[in-house]
C-alpha cells in the first residue's frame, strides 16, 4: 500500500541526470537497440536492488532510486516514438497534441480531442469515416455489413498502415538531420528549431494516422 517514502537524509538537492546521460549518450536520436540493451543489462547488474538486499536501508533506497531511473530511461529510449517525444520535451517543446492531459480533459468533457486532419488525408479519412458509419449502422440493425463496406475498410486499413510505415521513415530522416545538427553543435540555432518543428509535425501526423489504424482495426476485428 501507499506509504510516504522517507525523506532523504541528504537534503542537498541533486540534479537528476536525463535519460540520455543515464546511458552516457549525447542527445542523438539514431541509436542501436542492441547496444542500448547491452548497457541496460550491464547497469542493471550493478544497480538492481537485489544486489543490495543485505545492505543498509539507505543503500537499498539508493539502489531503488537508481534502478528506477535506469528502467525509466531504458523504457523511454528503446521506444522510437517515446524517445523522440522525450528529446523534444528536453528541448523545451510543448507537445500539446500528444499531451496526456489534453486527451484526458477531452475524454472527461466527452469531446473528441481536437486534432487537425492533415490536408492530404482529408479525402481518404472522409471516405473511411463513411464506411465506418455504414458498418456501425449495419451492426445496429443486427446485420453483417455488405461485402463492399468490408472490403473498403480492409483497403483503408492497408492504406493507412502503409502510410504509418512511410511516416516512420520520415521520422527516421528527421532523426538523421537532428543528429547532424547535434554533431555541429547547432541544436540551439535556427536549424535546430526547424528540425524540432519538423519532428513535431511528423509526430502529430503519426499520432493521427495511428488512431485511424486503431479505429479501423477495432471495427474490423470487433
Amino acid at each position, binding site marked *: *500500500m*501507499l*506509504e*510516504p*517514502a522517507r*525523506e532523504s537524509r541528504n537534503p542537498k538537492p541533486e540534479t537528476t541526470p536525463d535519460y540520455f546521460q543515464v546511458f552516457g549518450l549525447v542527445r542523438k536520436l539514431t541509436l542501436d537497440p542492441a547496444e542500448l540493451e547491452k548497457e541496460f*543489462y550491464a547497469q*542493471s*547488474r550493478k544497480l*538492481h*536492488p*537485489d*544486489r543490495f*538486499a*543485505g545492505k543498509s536501508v539507505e543503500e537499498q533506497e539508493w539502489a*531503488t*532510486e537508481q*534502478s*528506477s*531511473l535506469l*528502467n*525509466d530511461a*531504458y*523504457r523511454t529510449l528503446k521506444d522510437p516514438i517515446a524517445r523522440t517525444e522525450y528529446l523534444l520535451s528536453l528541448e523545451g517543446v510543448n507537445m500539446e497534441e500528444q499531451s*496526456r*492531459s489534453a486527451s*484526458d*480533459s477531452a*475524454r*472527461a*468533457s466527452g469531446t473528441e480531442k481536437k486534432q487537425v486532419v492533415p490536408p492530404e488525408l482529408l479525402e481518404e479519412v472522409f471516405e473511411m469515416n463513411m464506411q465506418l458509419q455504414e458498418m456501425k449502422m449495419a451492426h445496429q440493425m443486427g446485420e453483417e455489413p455488405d461485402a463492399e463496406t468490408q472490403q473498403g475498410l480492409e483497403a483503408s486499413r492497408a492504406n493507412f498502415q502503409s502510410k504509418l510505415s512511410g511516416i516512420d521513415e520520415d521520422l527516421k530522416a528527421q532523426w538523421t538531420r537532428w543528429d547532424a545538427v547535434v554533431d555541429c553543435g547547432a541544436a540551439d540555432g535556427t536549424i535546430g528549431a526547424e528540425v524540432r518543428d519538423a519532428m513535431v509535425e511528423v509526430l502529430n501526423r503519426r499520432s493521427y494516422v495511428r488512431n485511424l489504424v486503431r479505429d479501423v482495426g477495432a471495427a474490423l476485428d470487433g
Partner: protein
Amino acid sequence: MAENERIVGIDLGTTNSLVAFMQGDHPVIIPGEEGANLLPSVVALEVHATKGERIIVGNRARNVLIQRAENAIYSVKRLMGRGAEDVQEELKFFPFRISGGDGTVLKIQLGGREFTPPQISAYVLLQLKKNAERYFGAAVTKAVITVPAYFNDAQRQATKDAGRIAGLEVLRLVNEPTAAALAYGLDKQRDGIVAVYDFGGGTFDISILKLHEGIFEVVSTNGDTHLGGDDIDNLLLTIAIDEIKSDLGLDIRKNGEAIQALRKSVIEAKVALSSAPSATIDLELEGGKRYQREVPLAVFEEMIEPILQRTMQPCRQAIKDAGISLEQISEVVMVGGSTRIPRVRKLVTDLFGLGARGKQPHTELNPDEVVALGAAVQANILGGGSIATENMLLLDVTPLSLGIEALGGVVSKIIQRNSTIPASATEHFTTGVEGQTNVAVHVVQGEREMAGDCRSLARFDLKGIPPMPAGIPRIEVKFLIDANGILQVSAREQRSGKQAQIEVKPTYGLTDEQVEKMILDSFDYAEDDLTKRQVIEARNEAENLILHLEKAKKSAAWSAISEQERIEVTALESELKSDKELDDYKLIRESIERLDKASRKLAELMMDTAVSSAMKGQTMKEAGEKMGDAPNAPHPFAPAEIETKG
C-alpha cells in the same frame, strides 16, 4: 544476526504452501514434521475439552475442515487484499463468515475471534518457518515469498504483512511464474524467449521472459487472480449439489461438513481424471443415502472447457504486449497443479504452436514444487549468491498500469503495465481555489478508462500547501513502484520547496500499527504451538539417546562398567522410554539429563583409549555425535535450537 543466516524461499499457495532453500548449488524443499513437502494452506481452530482452543495448520487443519467446517479456513489467498464486497461471489463456496465492508479490510470469523486474511496466512507462514527452523536447527527470520504475477498492490502488501505477522522479514516478493523460470533456468542456462503458464489452485498467470546470459527479463505478464483449480472444484461441486437435491431429495447446501466431504471426493475424481479414462464422485449421506456419479473423461473435459478457455485470452494479450511472434517463443514452462490436466497441456501446446515445431511444454520439474524452488534460488541471489547463481538477475515488471483519477473520473495513466520495476513517475498537482492548502489524490491500478472500474489503491491528501492563489502552488508527487511491485509515494511543493505531507488512506489494507498489533496477537496464540514443538524436540532427543545407548550396550564398553552402573543405566533408560511419551517437555528433559549423567562413564569407555583422554567429561550424547552416529547435516528431524523469547 548471524552473517550467514539462511534465507528461505516460500511459495504461499492457495491450496498448498512450501518452503525451500538452496543447498549447495541446488534448491531443495524442506519437508514438514510428517515428512511431506506440501503443507495444505488450511488453518483451523482445534477445540480441546481441557486444553482450550488453539490454531492448527496443514493436514490436521484439513481434517477439521471435514469434521467441523466452520472451524477451518482454506483458500484464504483468494481473500488477500480484498474488501468484503469483492468476494461475495467466492463466498457462495466458502463456509466462512465474513465481516467488514465499505473499502475496509475484510475479517473472517473463526471461533469467537475475527482474523484478517494476512493473519490467517501468517499461521501458514509460521508453520513453514518452524519446519525450516527444525530442519536447520537454527532460527529463520528472512524469507522470499512468491505471489501471483497478476497480484495488485493491495494483494502484495497483504502478503508482505502476513510475513511480518509471522515474524519474517520479507526480503522480496517474487512473481510465481518468474520464480518458476529461475528454477528451470538454473538447470538449462540457455538464452531465448520463454513463456511460463502458471495455472494453480486459485490463480492463473502467464509471463513471457527473455533469458540472456543469466538475466531473466520479464517482457510481459498477464493473468487472473481468481482463476484456478478451485474453480474446477466449485463447478463440479455445484453440479453434484444439484444432482443430490434432484436425485436424492437432499439439500446439503447448509451442511458445511457434507459440502467439504463432497469437495474432497470431487477433488479426488478430478485428480484421478488426469490419468484415468473415468472417475467416480462418491459420497455417503445421512439416512444411508449415497451419491455416486461416474464422470467419464470426455464429459469432464467438456464441463471444464469454459474455465480453461479463460486462460487463453491473458496468454494472447501477453504475447501481444511482448511484441513478439509465437515462433520466437522457444520454450513453454508449465507450473501449478492444474497443469497436470491433460486437456490443459493440449490447449497450451496448441496455443503456442508447439506441436508443429516438434516441441512439448516443459513438465520436468514437479509443478507443485517449482515455484518454491525458484523462490529459494532468488533467496540465494539476495543472500549474496553462490557459484550457481552469481550471474543471475531477475528483472520483473508491474502487471497493472498505475493511474490517478483525473477530472470527470477518468484515469490518467502514469506507469504503464509491463514496465520494468523499480519504475517511477513524477506528476504535478496544483490547487483550484485560492488559499487551498490540501489537494486530494486518488491512485488506482488497472487498465480501464474510468477510475470507478479500476482497483482503488489509496486516496491521499497533500497537506500543508502554503496558501497561494489558485493554480500557483506546484506540488510534485513522485510515484515509485519498488522491486516488490509495491507503490511508494513522496511529495514536494516546488515553489516553497517544502516537503508536502501525505496522509495515505489505503483502500484495502492494514496500517503499520495494525500489523504491529497483530504480531503480538499471533505470538500469544502461538504459545500452545511452541509448547508442542518443545515436546517434539525433547522426544527426538530422547530417542537419539536411547539409540546411542542400544549401540553402546553391544560394545565392549558395556561389560567394562560395573554391574551396579549397568543396572542404573538400564533402569533410567526404561524410565526415559516411558517419560518420552508424556506431553511434558520439562519432564522428558529431566529424564534425559539423568540418563545422560549415569551413562557418562560408558560414553568415555566407548571411545578408544587415545581419544577418550581427549574426550573426558563428554556425555553419552556428545560422544555419540563425535562418533558420527548423530546427524550432523541438516536433517528434517534434527533437534532445533531456538531461543524463545519470554
